[in-house]
C-alpha cells in the first residue's frame, strides 16, 4: 500500500522533491516576465572595439540592451578577502564589472545583455549584436603568465595577484630542516581544475516595485544575505532595506553558488529600467564557461624526514589560478584554506608554504567543495606515499609514526592552527578493520588471475571547516564576519518557526535542525519548521559553505533556543507563581522543582502572546529569540580512507573496487544525512581523481565545455562505499560538539585513489612514481608506455 508522504522515514524536504513540487528559481514564473540573454565573448582575451546594438534593438520583442557602458558608474564585484604578499604589499584587485567594458578577459565573459519578451527573441537579438574585438594573445598557462609581458589586467602591470608566504617567519627554519635532512622526497603535481556542475544551472529573476522602490531577487544562491550585501554595498548600491534576496529550492551548489555573479546585478538593473520582472536561466554551456571553477594548482612539495622516518618539514611552492577576475572567496581559497592545513595530521615541526596567485584568461576560480583543503591534503598525502615508497616503509606505519597523538590536544600545528580534538590512530584502526586490509593479498591475487592489477591506497586527512571565527579570519584578511544567526519563534499555538541564516540546497537542514530544538525543548520535532533562504524572513546569516551549517548556524539555533528556555521559564514561573530559578523543563513540561506544579510548553507559548496578567516591567510579551553565533575556532574533522582499484593493463582503465571512509565528525546529529554528505563528497573526489578534466587550449577555448567532454561521475563509475563515523571526538568549542561533514569526502578521497593506482601500477611492474589527475585510461596507459 502506498504510504502518506509523512509516514515514510527520511527527510522532510523529500516529499516535495520526489513529487516534482519543489520550487527552484526557474520554476517560478512571474506575470509579465521578460527574458534576459547574455552576449558572451567568443575569445579569451581581446579589446572591445565596437558593440553596435542598433540592429539588435530593432529585432522583434526586444525591450532593452545593456552593455558595459551602462555600468561604468556602479561598482565592481569585490574580493572578500585581502591577502598581502610576502613583501607586505596588498594583492592586486582589478575591478570585476557587471558587464565587460573595454576588454573581454575569458571565453564566456559577458559583454552585453538583451532583454526581450521571450528567451528565443532575446537569443535572436543577441546574435544580431555587431561586436568587434581586437583579439590579443590568450594568457592561459600560469608559468607563462608570470614570466610574460601580456597582462590580463593591463592596469596592474602583472599577472601575479599576490605572492603569499605562510608562515614567513618559519621559512628559514623550514629551509634549514630540508637542507639538513636525512631524506627529502620531492613531488611536482597538478591539482586539476574542476567545474562544480551543480545539476541546477544558475538562474536569477528580479522584479522592481516603483512605488516602494523595492527590489526582489530570486536567485540560485547558497547565501542570500551575502549576495544582498555585495549587491547593496559594492555593486549597485541598492539600499539593503530595499532589496530582498530569495534563494528558494536550490539544486546543489558545491561552492559555485556562494558567489555573487554579474547576471544577478544585470537582471536587477533591467527590472528597474523596464518595470517588469526579468529572468535569466543559464544553459549548461554557460555554466561551464562562467560558474566559478575549482582547484587548479600547480605545486612542488618537499617532505624532509630523518633517518627514523620522522617528518621534519613540509615546504611547498604553489601557483594558484584565479582566472580572469577575483571571485568573492578566490583569494582565501589557496591561502588560508590551504596553507594553514599544510601540516596535515602530523607533528611535523616546520611548514612553509608559498602561493603565487595568477590571473589568466580563464573563468574565475574559487572555492569548490573542500576549497583549498583538498589541495593541501592531496599534496601532503601524495608526497608521504612517495616517501614511503622511496624509503621502503609501510605507508600506514609512516603516517602513524608522525600522527598527532590523542594526548597532544589542543595541538598547535606548525601551519598555525590549533586542532581541538581528534584521534587519528583510532580512525586508522577502524579503517583497517572495515576495509579488511588483511584480505587484500587474496583480493590482489584474484585480480591478477583475471589479468588485472590491483592497488591499495590509503590516506589520512584533517581539514578546517565550520567557517569561521570572525576574529581570526579578520586578522587573516577576511572582509566579512563568518558567524551565523538563528531566530526561534514560538508561535502562540505552540508550534515553532526557526529562521536560519544557513541555506539548505541538499544538506537536509529542514530535517536536521528541528531535532536540535526539539531535543532541547522536549517537544515533538514535527511542530517545528525551518525557514531559510529569504532575507526578508531570516536574520542576517552568512549561508552555507565550508561545512558550516550545523557547526555554526546549528550552534546559533542552540543559543537562540537557550534564550527561549530562559524566557519561557520566566513565563512559567509567573504562571506557577514561583521563581524562575526553580523552574525545570523536561519533556516539554515546565515544573516547579520538587512539586507537582507544572505547565506545558504549549500553555507557556499561548500565555506569551496573551499576556493579560503579565508583570510587564519584568516580562515582555511574545516568545521569540535571536542569537548570532561566532565560533571560537574552526572544527577539525579528520579521517582515514582506503581505496582498492583495479587497473586494466591493456587499456589503462581504472575501476574503484572498494572504498572505505572513516571520518571523525565529532557528535553526529543525523547519521543518515551525514553519511549521504560523505557519499557525495566521495563521488566528487573520485571524479576529480579519475574523471574530471577541465581543459583550456592555448587560445583559451574551453575544450571540456559540455557533458560530451567533461566527465561527470556516473553510477557505473562508482562502487558502494563503506562509510563510518563511529570514532568521533567531539568538537570542544561548539555547543553541539559537531564538526563539519560536507566536504570531507571530497578532501580525503583524491589522494586515496591516486595512491591506489600508483600501487597497482607498481604491482604490475610499472614503477610509476606519480601521475597527475585525472587518471584517465589514456593517461594511465601512456604512463605504462614510458616506464
Amino acid at each position, binding site marked *: 500500500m502506498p504510504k502518506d508522504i509523512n509516514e515514510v522515514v527520511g527527510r522532510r524536504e523529500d516529499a516535495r522533491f520526489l513529487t516534482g513540487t519543489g520550487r527552484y528559481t526557474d520554476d517560478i*514564473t512571474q506575470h509579465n516576465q521578460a527574458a534576459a540573454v547574455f552576449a558572451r565573448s567568443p575569445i579569451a582575451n581581446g579589446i572591445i572595439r565596437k558593440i553596435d546594438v542598433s540592429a539588435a534593438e530593432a529585432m522583434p520583442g526586444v525591450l532593452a540592451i545593456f552593455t558595459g557602458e551602462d555600468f561604468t558608474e556602479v561598482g565592481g564585484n569585490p574580493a572578500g578577502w585581502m591577502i598581502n604578499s610576502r613583501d607586505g604589499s596588498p594583492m592586486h584587485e582589478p575591478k570585476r564589472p557587471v558587464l565587460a567594458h573595454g576588454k573581454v578577459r575569458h571565453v564566456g565573459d559577458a559583454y552585453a545583455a538583451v532583454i526581450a519578451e521571450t528567451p528565443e527573441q532575446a537569443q535572436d537579438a543577441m546574435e544580431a549584436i555587431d561586436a568587434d574585438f581586437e583579439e590579443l594573445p590568450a594568457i592561459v598557462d600560469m608559468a607563462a603568465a608570470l614570466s610574460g609581458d601580456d597582462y590580463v589586467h593591463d592596469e596592474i602591470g602583472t599577472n601575479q595577484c599576490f605572492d603569499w608566504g605562510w608562515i614567513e617567519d618559519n621559512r628559514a627554519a623550514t629551509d634549514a630542516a630540508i637542507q639538513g635532512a636525512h631524506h627529502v622526497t620531492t613531488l611536482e603535481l597538478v591539482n586539476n581544475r574542476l567545474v562544480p556542475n551543480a545539476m541546477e544551472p544558475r538562474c536569477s529573476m528580479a522584479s522592481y516595485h516603483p512605488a516602494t522602490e523595492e527590489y526582489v531577487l530570486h536567485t540560485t544562491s547558497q547565501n542570500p544575505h551575502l549576495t544582498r550585501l555585495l549587491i547593496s554595498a559594492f555593486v549597485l548600491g541598492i539600499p539593503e532595506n530595499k532589496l530582498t534576496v530569495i534563494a528558494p529550492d536550490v539544486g546543489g551548489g558545491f561552492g559555485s553558488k556562494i558567489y555573487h555573479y554579474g547576471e544577478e546585478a544585470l537582471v536587477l538593473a533591467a527590472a528597474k529600467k523596464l518595470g517588469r520582472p526579468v529572468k535569466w536561466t543559464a544553459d549548461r554551456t554557460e555554466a561551464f564557461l562562467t560558474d566559478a571553477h575549482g582547484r587548479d594548482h600547480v605545486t612542488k612539495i618537499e617532505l624532509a624526514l630523518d633517518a627514523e622516518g620522522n617528518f621534519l618539514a613540509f615546504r611547498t611552492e604553489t601557483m594558484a589560478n584565479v582566472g580572469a577576475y577575483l571571485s568573492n572567496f578566490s583569494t582565501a581559497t589557496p591561502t588560508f584554506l590551504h596553507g594553514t592545513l599544510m601540516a596535515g595530521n602530523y607533528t611535523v615541526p616546520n611548514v612553509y608554504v608559498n602561493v603565487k596567485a595568477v590571473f589568466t584568461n580563464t573563468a574565475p576560480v574559487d572555492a569548490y567543495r573542500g576549497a583549498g583543503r583538498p589541495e593541501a591534503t592531496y599534496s601532503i598525502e601524495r608526497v608521504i606515499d612517495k616517501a614511503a615508497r622511496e624509503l621502503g616503509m609501510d605507508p600506514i606505519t609512516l603516517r602513524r609514526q608522525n600522527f598527532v597523538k590523542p594526548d597532544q590536544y589542543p595541538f598547535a600545528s606548525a601551519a598555525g592552527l590549533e586542532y581541538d580534538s581528534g584521534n587519528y590512530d583510532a580512525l586508522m584502526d577502524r579503517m583497517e578493520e572495515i576495509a579488511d586490509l588483511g584480505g587484500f593479498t587474496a583480493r590482489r591475487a584474484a585480480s591478477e588471475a583475471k589479468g588485472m592489477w590491483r592497488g591499495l591506497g590509503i590516506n589520512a586527512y584533517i581539514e578546517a571547516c565550520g567557517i569561521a571565527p570572525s576574529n581570526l579570519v579578520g586578522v587573516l584578511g577576511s572582509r566579512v564576519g563568518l558567524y551565523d544567526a538563528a531566530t526561534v519563534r514560538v508561535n502562540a499555538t505552540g508550534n515553532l518557526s526557526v529562521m536560519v541564516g544557513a541555506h539548505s540546497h541538499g544538506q537536509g537542514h529542514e530535517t536536521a535542525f528541528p531535532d536540535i530544538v526539539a531535543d532541547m525543548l522536549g517537544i515533538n520535532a514535527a511542530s517545528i519548521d525551518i525557514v531559510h533562504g529569504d532575507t526578508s524572513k531570516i536574520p542576517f546569516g552568512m549561508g552555507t559553505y565550508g561545512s558550516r551549517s550545523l557547526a555554526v548556524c546549528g550552534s546559533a539555533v542552540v543559543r537562540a533556543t537557550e534564550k527561549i528556555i530562559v524566557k519561557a521559564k520566566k513565563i512559567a514561573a509567573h504562571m506557577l507563581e514561583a521563581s524562575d530559578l526553580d523552574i525545570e523543563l523536561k519533556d516539554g513540561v515546565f515544573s516547579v522543582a520538587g512539586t507537582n506544579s507544572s505547565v506545558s510548553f504549549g500553555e507557556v507559548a499561548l500565555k506569551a502572546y496573551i499576556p493579560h496578567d503579565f508583570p510587564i516591567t519584568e516580562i515582555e510579551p511574545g516568545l521569540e529569540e535571536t542569537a548570532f553565533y561566532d565560533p571560537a575556532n574552526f572544527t577539525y574533522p579528520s579521517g582515514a580512507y582506503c581505496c582498492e582499484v583495479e587497473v586494466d593493463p591493456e587499456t589503462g582503465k581504472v575501476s574503484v573496487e572498494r572504498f572505505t571512509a572513516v571520518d571523525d565528525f565529532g557528535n553526529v546529529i543525523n547519521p543518515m544525512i551525514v553519511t549521504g554528505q560523505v557519499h557525495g563528497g566521495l563521488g566528487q573526489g573520485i571524479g576529480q581523481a579519475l574523471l574530471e578534466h577541465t581543459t583550456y587550449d592555448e587560445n583559451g577555448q574551453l575544450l571540456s565545455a559540455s*557533458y560530451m567532454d567533461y566527465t561527470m561521475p556516473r553510477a557505473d563509475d562508482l562502487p558502494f562505499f563503506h562509510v563510518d563515523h563511529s570514532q568521533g571526538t567531539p568538537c570542544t568549542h561548539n555547543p553541539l560538539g559537531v564538526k563539519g561533514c560536507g566536504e570531507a569526502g571530497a578532501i580525503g578521497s583524491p589522494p586515496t585513489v591516486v595512491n591506489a593506482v600508483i600501487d597497482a601500477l607498481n604491482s604490475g611492474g610499472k614503477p610509476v612514481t606519480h601521475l597527475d589527475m585525472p587518471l584517465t585510461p589514456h593517461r594511465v596507459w601512456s604512463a605504462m608506455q614510458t616506464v
Partner: protein
Amino acid sequence: MTTVTMTVNGKSVSREVESRTLLSAFLRDGLNLTGTHIGCDTSQCGACTVHVDGKAVKACTMFALEAEGAEVGTIEGQSSHGKLNTIQEAFKEHHGLQCGFCTPGMVMTTAALLKDNPTPSEAQIRAHLEGNICRCTGYHNIVKAIMAASGQDVSAIAAA
C-alpha cells in the same frame, strides 16, 4: 503555431505550440508541470526524463509535436493525493536524494527500469542510470533505493 493534443498524467491536454517547442518546455511552461527539470543542453543529464507511451525519454530532446496523441507521464503523475509510490518511498527511506534536482528524472528512469526488469542487479541498475547524472549522492543511496524498491534486501549494503 500548431495545436498539439496529448494525454499528460491521464488528462487530455491541448495547446498551441511552435514546431521548435520541446516537450520539456511544453510541460514546464505550457502546463506548469515544473517537476521536469532542465540540467543540460546535450541530452545527457536526464533531469527531464518523462515517459512517452510507457517508455523513458528525455523531454528536452523531443519536440512537443512529436508527442501528438501520446500518453505522457511526468513526475507529477507518480504520486497521487499525497501518497508516494513504492519507488518514491524507497528514495525517501534510503536518502536517495539531496538537492532534489535530478530526482524526478531518477524516479522516472527507475520506474521504466523496474517495469522491464523487476529485480535488477546492482550492476544493471548502475548501467541503467548512465543517462541520469546526480552530483550530490555519489549514487550510493540511489542504487540502494532502487534495489529496495524492487523488493531486494539491502540490509547488507553499508548503512546510510
